[in-house]
């Protein structure tokens, strides 16, 4: 493997990312499964970097999951997106930042479509007006939240209290990055590093001292596949996809999986559990699994935030082994306490997967 080769490609795919005044829209999946990550994104931008990031309470889903599971027509989704743009415009912002990769992909696709088919854009504007009376400007800059963190990876690196280095051995941690399919597959130019060797997460890992591991099934989808997960009868597809990735990365003994998509971390986390219950197979050393993190969680960790404030307790695959490697202190007793420090009980321990 020649990293120079990758660097050359990374150079070719450097996208424009706004450096302030972000209009932020939330992700359906992340809110449910990684609420603390979205919280952390705000804290990092506001408190650590002193940026202006705004959320309009009236904003909603882009209906992307509905669209990609085909119950919501393209026309409708485009108008939903137009409405988000309208809210941005009304709030006086131009830089649009999404928390969700599906959304990001969809926004990109829609903007492209409008670019190639102006008549479609006109129709959407008309529909939006008809339905809501709103009008909109297209954003001058569209980025995914991970782009923003990538943009400020150096600043974060400078403030970092911990690095992606094994405290005992001093070796950089072996990190596997998993990019959401809709980040750059359709429009390689719209993602940092392009479609084949995306740099958005790799950049963070390198910057924060880790080692990026390439493995054969790196590009493989986690298996969400929308309808393929939403319907129980189809979940075998979803599961099999993730299994394929695990089997492929296992020989490289990764210390963690870093993701930038809302769904992927949830699936890569839950499917490890499911597989262990289904076949008794666990990945990672002595049945502890391979920890899966969102980029905000990782940023939070290196910046020294409390793991439980980052929501690592709601991961099914325990993060503790990683914290130990990084030498990050944590209080196991506080793991399952509520805001006021009262116990919320404990989840049941899985049959095979380690649980702390």
């Amino acid at each position, binding site marked *: 493997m020649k990293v120079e080769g990758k660097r050359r490609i990374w150079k070719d795919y450097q996208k424009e990312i706004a450096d302030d005044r972000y209009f932020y829209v939330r992700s359906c999946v992340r809110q449910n499964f990684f609420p603390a990550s979205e919280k952390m994104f705000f804290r990092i931008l506001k408190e650590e970097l002193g940026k202006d990031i705004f959320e309009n309470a009236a904003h*909603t889903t882009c209906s992307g999951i509905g669209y990609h599971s085909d119950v919501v027509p393209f026309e409708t989704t485009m108008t939903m997106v137009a409405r988000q743009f309208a809210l941005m415009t009304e709030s006086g912002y131009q830089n649009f930042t999404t928390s969700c990769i599906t959304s990001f992909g969809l926004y990109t696709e829609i903007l492209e479509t409008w670019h190639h088919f102006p008549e479609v854009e006109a129709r959407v504007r008309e529909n939006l007006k008809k339905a809501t009376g709103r009008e909109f400007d297209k954003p001058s800059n569209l980025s995914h939240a991970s782009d923003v963190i990538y943009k400020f990876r150096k600043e974060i690196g400078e403030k970092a209290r911990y690095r992606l280095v094994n405290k005992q051995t001093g070796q950089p941690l072996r990190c596997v990055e998993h990019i959401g399919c809709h980040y750059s597959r*359709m429009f390689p130019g719209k993602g940092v590093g392009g479609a084949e060797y995306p740099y958005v997460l790799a950049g963070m890992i390198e910057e924060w001292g880790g080692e990026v591991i390439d493995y054969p099934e790196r590009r493989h989808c986690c298996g969400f596949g929308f309808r393929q997960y939403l319907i129980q009868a189809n979940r075998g597809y979803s599961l099999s996809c993730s299994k394929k990735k695990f089997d492929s990365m296992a020989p490289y003994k990764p210390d963690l999986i870093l993701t930038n998509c809302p769904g992927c971390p949830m699936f890569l986390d839950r499917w490890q559990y499911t597989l262990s219950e289904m076949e008794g197979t666990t990945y990672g050393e002595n049945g502890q699994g391979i920890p899966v993190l969102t980029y905000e969680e990782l940023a939070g960790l290196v910046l020294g935030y409390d793991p439980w404030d980052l929501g690592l307790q709601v991961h099914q695959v325990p993060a503790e082994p990683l914290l130990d490697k990084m030498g990050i202190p944590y209080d196991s007793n506080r793991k399952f306490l509520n805001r006021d420090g009262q116990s919320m009980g404990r989840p049941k321990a899985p049959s095979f997967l380690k649980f702390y």
Partner: protein
Amino acid sequence: MGELYDRLAGDVRFVEGLKACLNCGTCTAICPAAEFYAYQPRQIVDILQTHDDQAIESLLKSETIWYCGECMSCVTRCPRGNAPGLLITVLRAASQDLGYFVESEKGRQQLAIKRTVGEWILDYGYCLYPSEILPEKHPEQGPVWEWEHEHIEEVMERLGANYKKTGPGILRKVPQEDLDEIRKIFDVTGGTARFNAIENYSKQKAGEMGIDLDDTLDNDYMKKIYTENSQNHGREL
């Protein structure tokens, strides 16, 4: 060129998605669905470029079009700039609007998606909402989710969410007037029409199949489409 083909060709995604396929197979090579189902994106494009309405109709009625996961990996690779993934979205739209989706087991599942994700969009303003993700319907979510779900308010509060509350923030209650706007958008742009189509064709089919289907999530038809794989679909040998 047939009627059906023209209908599809009217969709911008179709125009973007179908240039001219040279059957090289770069799409199938990396297609997750091709790995786990009896499915080939190449074949889809190949059938479409025959412009043969009969073939297209049987495609719309088939299980095949429902195997794709819309990961769009195929789009990255095609040396002719086709987008099989996009074409699938067009085919699925047509299959639902024409009522062909009920002819296939995988197609019939659309009702379950409509009644969950679809409705949630209108009810909550988001595609998912924690209270709806029931551990019994999602055993794979594991004990942690079970625990989370049990203590959802507290957990969300602990993690800094604005769960079910007003104002901005994570999992807030989206104001009613905004939900109304969404509904309007759905009415104006055919979202509602799509929902109705899915409902009506499904009810019709349920009748034909003689399986009970009411408006709830828990009835024989819903159970059937949510859990059943009566055929192989190429899942095993």
